[in-house]
């Protein structure tokens, strides 16, 4: 019940926030904040009251109502450790995005916050739906408010970026829809039962060739969202053109739905086919790591740099998921969180810089440390987190992924490890070009732009406010916590990952499943 309540709260809250802005200016963001906090408390309260003893057995909560009985479609929501931690990330990032962009949205605020909450409602649905039709429903529905966020409040090239984003994700998900329906038909022919239920479909017997094709449909939809090379072209544009809050949601949460889909659906539904496809997927992941890093290095637009670094980071996720052992898989999950936190913070910082300097071009920055010490310190912190400094979350994640995948397929792991050198390069270059060096180009730049809001070239930009500072500090601490003590996170998602790996040919899964608790701590410095 709580899951449905959560979705309804967010969806209805969006509508109410939109209407409230008409009555009283400035009320929408307060209302949105209140709703997000209420939703988080609701989730945490319910889970802490729940007896943790049998959490390993299956779903923590379930709600199943008949929706379209003609096709055996149920409004079926359920939650386990993986869903719960991703939900928590979703809500936390929702609050973070709201706080750091508190004053940045000035135009049509009511509709903005309505869309903001609707995206979160859709994502909540994606993370909890265990009926394939319902999952697809939320998968599509979350895109529409995101599309509007980019297209209405984005930067200069917003319309093209929004259309590109939507066509990439929609076209690939149509392939998934075909796969879903084909899977249901096969299930119907063998058992005589029409159902879209996840549990029922898990047991479907499919001949290997068909399974391979169906698996590809799912894989495409999820890797476009992830994104992995060669399905990434939508991401740099969408991230760069989206408003700051939109970029945060995209990077921190929306990309995670792709990885979640791979772990929850592709692997368990088609274990043999995934196994056969693993070399290709791991190669794609490894190439993404290097490719994202190389392209990030070549950018002068700071936001684009962060966007390309996302491709690189998500390459590790793909590599880890398809290594088919518990270590790499847990590394992939930790990477989801570490990347979510660090990239969201970097997008927030770029947004804050753009709000102050009216440019994202690093050629026009430089020497920012002096006027903006707090902001610059945070840029430095999250940049080194992004390059995988030991002690922070990203290091644990990438280390685990490399460790797990090396045993499975060494060449891909080696290539991906090379990508980490690239990460060091682009992160340090970004810090070097924006924070240090001579400050002069920026002043000229802003004088040329002549933006009246900045108060001319002479007025120094304002440093972080207490609100922004606290929000960023919370993220930094969370990242540090994951880096020093990843075990609680890994424990909570372990049962779900074991289920994902359970159907694999026994020799591979059995070895790795036992090792995870001991090696999890190995990531600690």
């Amino acid at each position, binding site marked *: 019940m709580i899951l449905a309540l959560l979705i309804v709260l967010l969806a209805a809250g969006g509508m109410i926030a939109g209407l409230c802005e008409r009555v009283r200016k400035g009320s929408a963001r307060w209302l949105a904040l209140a709703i997000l906090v209420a939703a988080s408390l609701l989730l945490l309260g319910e889970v802490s009251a729940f007896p943790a003893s049998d959490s390993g057995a299956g779903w923590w909560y379930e709600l199943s109502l008949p*929706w*379209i*009985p*003609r*096709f055996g479609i149920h409004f079926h929501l359920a939650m386990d450790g993986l869903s719960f931690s991703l939900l928590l990330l979703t809500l936390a990032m929702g609050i973070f995005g709201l706080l750091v962009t508190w004053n940045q949205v000035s*135009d*049509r605020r009511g509709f903005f916050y309505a869309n903001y909450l609707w995206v979160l409602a859709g994502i909540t649905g994606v993370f909890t739906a265990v009926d394939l039709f319902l999952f*697809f*429903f939320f998968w*599509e*529905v979350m895109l*529409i408010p995101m*599309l*509007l966020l980019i*297209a*209405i409040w984005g930067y200069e090239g917003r*319309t093209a970026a*929004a*259309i590109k984003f*939507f*066509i990439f994700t*929609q*076209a690939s998900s*149509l*392939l998934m*829809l*075909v796969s879903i*329906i*084909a899977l249901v*038909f096969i299930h119907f022919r063998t058992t005589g039962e029409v159902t879209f239920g996840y549990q029922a479909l898990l047991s479907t017997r499919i001949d290997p060739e068909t399974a391979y094709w169906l698996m590809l449909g799912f894989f495409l939809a999820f890797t476009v969202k992830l994104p992995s090379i060669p399905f990434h072209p939508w991401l740099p544009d969408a991230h760069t053109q989206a408003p700051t809050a939109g970029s945060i949601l995209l990077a921190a949460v929306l990309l995670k739905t792709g990885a979640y889909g791979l772990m929850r659906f592709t692997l368990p539904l088609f274990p043999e086919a995934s196994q056969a496809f693993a070399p290709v997927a791991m190669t794609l992941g490894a190439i993404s790591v290097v490719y994202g890093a190389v392209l990030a290095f070549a950018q002068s637009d700071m936001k684009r740099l962060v966007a390309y670094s996302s491709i690189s980071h998500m390459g590790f996720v793909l590599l880890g998921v398809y290594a088919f052992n518990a270590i790499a898989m847990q590394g992939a999950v930790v990477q989801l969180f570490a990347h979510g936190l660090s990239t969201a913070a970097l997008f927030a910082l770029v947004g804050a810089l753009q709000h102050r300097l009216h440019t994202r071009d690093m050629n026009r920055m430089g020497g920012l440390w002096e006027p903006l010490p707090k902001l610059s310190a945070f840029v430095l912190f999250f940049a080194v987190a992004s390059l995988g400094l030991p002690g922070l979350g990203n290091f644990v994640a990438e280390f685990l992924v490399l460790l797990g995948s090396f045993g499975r397929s060494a060449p891909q792991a080696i290539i991906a490890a090379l990508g980490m050198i690239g990460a060091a390069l682009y992160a340090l270059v970004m810090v070097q070009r924006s924070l240090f060096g001579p400050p002069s180009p920026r002043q000229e730049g802003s004088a040329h732009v002549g933006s009246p809001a900045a108060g001319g070239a002479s007025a120094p930009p304002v440093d972080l406010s207490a609100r922004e500072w606290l929000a960023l500090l919370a993220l930094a601490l969370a990242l540090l916590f994951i880096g020093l003590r990843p075990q609680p996170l890994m424990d909570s998602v372990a049962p779900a990952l074991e289920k994902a790996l359970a159907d694999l040919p026994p020799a591979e899964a059995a070895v790795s499943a036992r090792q995870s608790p001991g090696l999890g701590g190995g990531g600690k410095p």
Partner: protein
Amino acid sequence: MTIMELHAILPLLTLTGGIVCLMLQVAFFRSHGAALGTTLVVLLLAICASLLVAAGLGNGIPSVQATALLLVDRQALLLCTLLLLAGVAVAILGRSYLRSRAIIPSATDHPEAFYILLLLCLLGACTLACASHFASFFLALELVGLSLYPLLGFPLTGNGFAAQEREPAMESAIKYLLLSALTSALGLFGIALVYGATGALEFAAVAAAIEGPAAASGLMQAGVTLVLAAMAFKLSLVPFHIWTPDVYQGAPTPVTALIATVSKAAAVAILLRLLTLSGLGEETITTSLLTVLAVASILGGNLLALMQDDVKRLLAYSSIAHIGYLAVALLIDGAFGGEAALYYLIAYIVTTLGAFATVSLVADEAVTDVDRHNAAGMDPCAGTYFAGLFWRAPLLGGCFAAMLLSLAGIPLTIGFIGKFYIFAAGIEGELWLVISAVIVGSALGLFYYLRLLLALFRRDHQRAAANGTARQVSLDGQLLLLVLSVTLLALGVFPQPLINWLHALYT
């Protein structure tokens, strides 16, 4: 003809009687409002009659054969109800259209004729839905066509219409007349060939003859091809689509809505019946022709729509693609194909009506506002006129956005469930080629739907402030849009009741 047969065709009789009454009324009492009132009453009575007959059917009597010409079953009655409801919407749009153009009332304006022609068109469409004989099939098809010619050219009748509306309307009417006459002749020739091959005109008798050697004969195959070509013209499937964009663009927008929904729904209805009753659906020639038509329409319609700026032309090409999607469901024989086709048809009608209703109401507002806001004489159907519509008229913009999302097949809307049905039908029949065409077509379609959708939300458009608001949009027009949007969302989120109805038709 027994009482039971007369009772079965009650909807058609109601319509016929209503048309006579309306003509008499207009002869004695000229009033736009009264004519509209009578039309609506007739339509509502006919809808009630359909439901009454449908309630009587079912317990033991699945269908009533009223003479050799008409077969009344639940599917036909459901389609009649649907057509009549679409007729109600067109009548409401027509009122707004005629009102906004009758700036100077004069004796030479005859707006009442619009409603008589509308009812005639609906009578033809409903008859088509019930036809079970090639004679009634052809007569009904011609009745629809004959009433559409004057409707398409309606701006030529009065002097309230601006010159820039008369010329396209003339073009539209002439084009439709010529091409429609040509394909009618082809269809008639096809019917003659089928008769030559089988010796029968009743669908059921054709089915019996097809079992024998007649099916393989060249005569039969040529006949079927010609009949299908005539239907493809009415459905504007590629390559018989040439007339569509020009006719849609030039016609008064309510009539465009009529031709896009009622005329096509009637054609789908008779095609469904033709394929099942006469056993043609299982012939290779039919399925291969339909496959080619479907794939060509999906790809052609979507590709051509990419280049359109005029909203009516864009919707014209998109309707070509949508009928292509629908044809996929016709390829599946058996109950599921019929169910899928009907659901998609309902989705198509609701969405298309809503889209054209918005275009029509926006254009009506622009015509009324011509002195104050639209002095530049901007074409109210151009894509640029719609920029920022959501901000200056939230209701119109919001409803139009919902319609576009439904056309694109995004969840929460009825269009998604329709597309789901098409995919399910294609997968059941294992028509992988056709399915890949549907996927490619949908991806192409997204591009132009989204471009228009995002234009609605464009916030920095200079004209946004200069343009009028929704003040001028009539209350009944707004209400109609609201009803259509609510239907679209309700059937998109809770499709089960409608699915139950459709499913019951075939069990």
